[in-house]
């Protein structure tokens, strides 16, 4: 996704390197190459602005070193969550 870039400095993704065990699962599941995990080392965030907050990394981090506010990057969904609240919101996808 080098040609298509979205807004800068908005992602809620955080990585706690103290907790990270370097298993590499985050970099496997991330569809945007946000993480790099080198051999015998811990994960690093190399492209924070590439993050779309899908939450795959956090869900698959066995030691919960990653936090992100996951959600759907969809205007229709967000409008509904403003009007009806998060629980009742849905989108057409």
């Amino acid at each position: 996704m080098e040609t298509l870039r979205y807004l800068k400095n908005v992602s809620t993704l955080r990585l706690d390197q103290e907790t990270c065990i370097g298993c590499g699962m985050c970099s496997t599941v991330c569809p945007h190459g946000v993480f790099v995990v080198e051999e015998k080392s811990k994960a690093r965030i190399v492209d924070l602005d590439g993050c779309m907050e899908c939450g795959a990394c956090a869900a698959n981090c066995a030691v919960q070193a990653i936090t992100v506010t996951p959600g759907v990057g969809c205007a229709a969904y967000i409008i509904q969550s403003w009007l009806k609240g998060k629980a009742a919101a849905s989108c057409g996808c």
Partner: protein
Amino acid sequence: MERSKQPEKSCCAPARPARDVAVGPTGLRMLPIAQPPQDEPCCGLPPGPPSSPFERPGYRLCGFVDDFIETANGAVPLVKTTLDSADNRGTFRARFNIGRNNYRVAPGLYGVGRPDREAPVLVTANYKLSFDSLRQELAGIDAWILVLDTRGINVWCAAGKKTFSTDEVINRVQAVGLAQVVGHRRLILPQLAATGVAAHRVRKGCGFEVVWGPIRAGDIGRFLESGLRADTGMRRVTFSLAERLILIPVEVSLTLKPALWVLLVAFFLSGIGPEVFSLRAAWQKGLAVFAASLVGIVAGALVVPGLLPWLPGRSFYLKGILTGLAGGVWVATVYVARTGPYGAAALIFYTVAVSSYLAMNFTGATPYTSPSGVEKEMRRGIPLQAVAVVLAVVAWLGSAFSG
């Protein structure tokens, strides 16, 4: 019996052989049937094929099922790796948002090729489009396909909505008795399901290890050949021109219902003038709004997705303003002679608002916009769009009195 009369020489004989092939939209295998003896009374069209041995009372055999294979847990349907005309019609309908929310296959275990106890297990969603795009790539491959009940939603959206979830994987593995069907303990999941599925919890829950497969079904062959290894390309989502254009019909179809309401209001506003309400003005000026609506929809829901990488800026509402401005100016020059300068200005504001709003909505269809980013641009875009609508209404009403 008038209808069934045929030329005497070939009563019941294959007068119209094409008809009997056309029978059977369910795609049942055509087994050879005995031709009725010639001396029987004339009976119109020849009979269709007999029932398939796999049919059961109360069930309908799916057209994509080729055969069945016996397993430790009973017969499992084997699916075709090609799409027939019924599948293609279904794909077309789904792409045009006709019955898209209920286009599903039954969850459970399927097979492809001649899978044995060591064959890989590929997990997917029960949206028929997802299922079809997977089986289409499995020609020459022996595998099991575990279809989850994602409520007819595609893999990534279902993972986001948590219908493609850790619990659903565990429950489905247990429900189909997968541990009795295969000897290994490995599931291949599409990478995009990772939003809803925690691999380490699946292992704890049902003893199966999750291997993250490629994002695109088209890479599954290479992934299996290379010993379950995905290269970087298989792990990265793309959003090519073709991938963007295929989404446009659904985007446009979603605008139709709101557009109808907007046009009703627009025809009403167009009639307001010095003579209180003029039906003639409502019709004539209303048509101009109709034209501006069409242009706004094209600018926001068609041009923005198509030209996405080349339109300046990162925010979608801004891209929509740009294309809307271009379209709006064009509509205004066409109608300025009839609507006057205020009317022309109103048409521009309106087209920009429609285009910007629809462009902003396209964020939901892209694979790279974060919710934080979308919310941020909405806080800027929606007030601008609202101001444009108010200006459009004021200028439109003003145009009726300024003439």
